[in-house]
């Protein structure tokens, strides 16, 4: 099957800044995929290249098998992008914007689908409101609706939940999950790693313009995430041999980072030999945030 997105050896330079350094990535149809990375990693730049908003200095991209430069019409028809910036056109109402956007994609009468989008994004009562008077969260949802007017098979959301409150964030994800169940490929970037962890089956981590990790969420968690152990000791004293594992102290607990569960044996043995008793012990589940911090901390 044709991949939904194919990114091949993509470089982007802004003058002397090498923002993307040979990115290779393929996203299969139907995937729910997260593109993660710290600010400035190049996520938005990569999305812009896919969307034709920017041109790669080198390399090529395809959306549903259509080259984003040579076959831009088909590539753009296959792609819906929710931009990171909260942009809007002050002159027009929500419905006008959605009608225009449909028209630009060559769709004449789209009101049935527009109404459905407004309904799912809780914007029905704002349809005839000028976009400039909407709150930030509403503007964000209008952007989502605009990206979906042409029912694109591939949907890319660049930090779609930034500035959206918790309840609406849940609704938004519910809607996007539904789109994914209906067969749309979803690619998102987000700062809330817990969102990526629960939603996305596969994750790419970008750092300084390079892919430093690309795997299923599950594999990343089991391969990279160190196990965190919180210990309360009596007496409250950590033997010197265990100092290198210490990540921090809080509320009378020592936080130790272990490579895996097996290492716990050694820790307990050392404590027993030092005559230190364990009064409480908690093992923290590895999460994507830990993997992320670990990968981003590592020098490449």
């Amino acid at each position, binding site marked *: 099957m044709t991949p939904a997105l194919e990114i091949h050896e993509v470089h982007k330079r802004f003058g002397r800044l090498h923002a993307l350094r040979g990115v290779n990535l393929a996203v299969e149809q139907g995937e729910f995929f997260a593109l993660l990375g710290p600010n400035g990693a190049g996520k938005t730049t990569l999305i812009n290249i896919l969307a034709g908003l920017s041109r790669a200095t080198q390399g090529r991209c395809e959306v549903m098998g259509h080259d984003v430069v040579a076959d831009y019409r088909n590539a753009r028809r296959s792609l819906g992008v929710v931009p990171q910036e909260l*942009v809007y056109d002050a002159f027009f109402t929500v419905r006008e*914007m959605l009608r225009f956007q449909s028209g*630009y994609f060559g769709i004449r009468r789209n009101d049935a689908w527009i109404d459905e989008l407004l309904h799912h994004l809780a914007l029905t009562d704002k349809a005839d409101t000028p976009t400039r008077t909407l709150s930030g969260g509403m503007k964000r949802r209008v952007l989502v609706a605009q990206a979906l007017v042409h029912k694109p098979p591939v949907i890319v959301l660049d930090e779609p939940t930034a500035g959206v409150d918790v309840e609406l964030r849940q609704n938004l994800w519910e809607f996007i999950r539904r789109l994914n169940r209906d067969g749309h490929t979803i690619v998102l970037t987000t700062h809330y790693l817990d969102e990526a962890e629960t939603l996305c089956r596969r994750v790419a981590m970008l750092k300084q313009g390079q892919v430093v990790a690309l795997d299923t969420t599950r594999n990343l968690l089991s391969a990279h995430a160190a196990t965190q152990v919180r210990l309360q000791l009596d007496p409250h004293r950590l033997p010197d041999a265990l100092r290198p594992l210490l990540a921090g102290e809080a509320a009378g607990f020592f936080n130790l980072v272990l490579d895996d569960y097996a290492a716990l044996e050694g820790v307990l043995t050392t404590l027993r030999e030092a005559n230190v008793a364990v009064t409480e012990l908690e093992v923290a589940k590895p999460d994507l945030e830990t993997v992320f911090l670990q990968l981003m901390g590592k020098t490449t």
Partner: protein
Amino acid sequence: MTGLWTLFYKELLRFWKVSLQTVLSPLVTTLLYLLIFSHVLAAHVQVYPGVGYTSFLIPGLVMMAMLQNAYANSSSSLIQSKMAGNIVFLLLPPLAYWEFFAAYVAAAVVRGLVVGIGVGLAGLWFAPMAVVHPLWLVLFALAGCAMLGMLGIITALWAASYDQMAAVQNFLIMPLTFLSGVFYSIHSLPPFWQALSRYNPFFYMIDGFRYGFFGMSDVSPALGLSIVGGCCLALSLTTLALLKSGYKLRN
């Protein structure tokens, strides 16, 4: 073609929603010019035999209003979209560069004509007007508005700020319009300025447009139309090439 039509319609709606500022205000300004200049100069200036100064002035003012408004339409729409970032709504869909071009130029022409017709009709109240060669009149009006619409696109593509935008408007477009013979015939100028005026394409637009009304002009309308048409062609090719390359739009 749906994309092109939608963009054209959106551009029309954009200026129509603020027509107080985009249609009525230039109309009033132009009529003030007419009122003041015709009052001050009517007794002193006779340009063409049998044509009163006020009658002479009206076509020039109509053309000036059309040119300025055609320019204002495409340039302000595009720079606003660029600055506000909502230009992405036009860059994400599969619109072709020539559709973008056609929609913006067509909307600029419509705005120019709406204001021009308004000024022309209001002018009838000041002096009687007859049209001797309607075809020339229409050709010069269309070519002039289209040309300024394109100049507006080029300026807005290039400008990185409202400031740069205003600089082009104030130091290039305004002088070229005012020094094009709106208020006088270039034959009344000293030889140096007369010669210089012949390098100003705006002069040919106004002169040719006036020919449509009176059947009299400073240069032959055919020569004028060739020059204006040549400028139009060169500007179209330039604008199309800039849009195709994604100049300052798709970095």
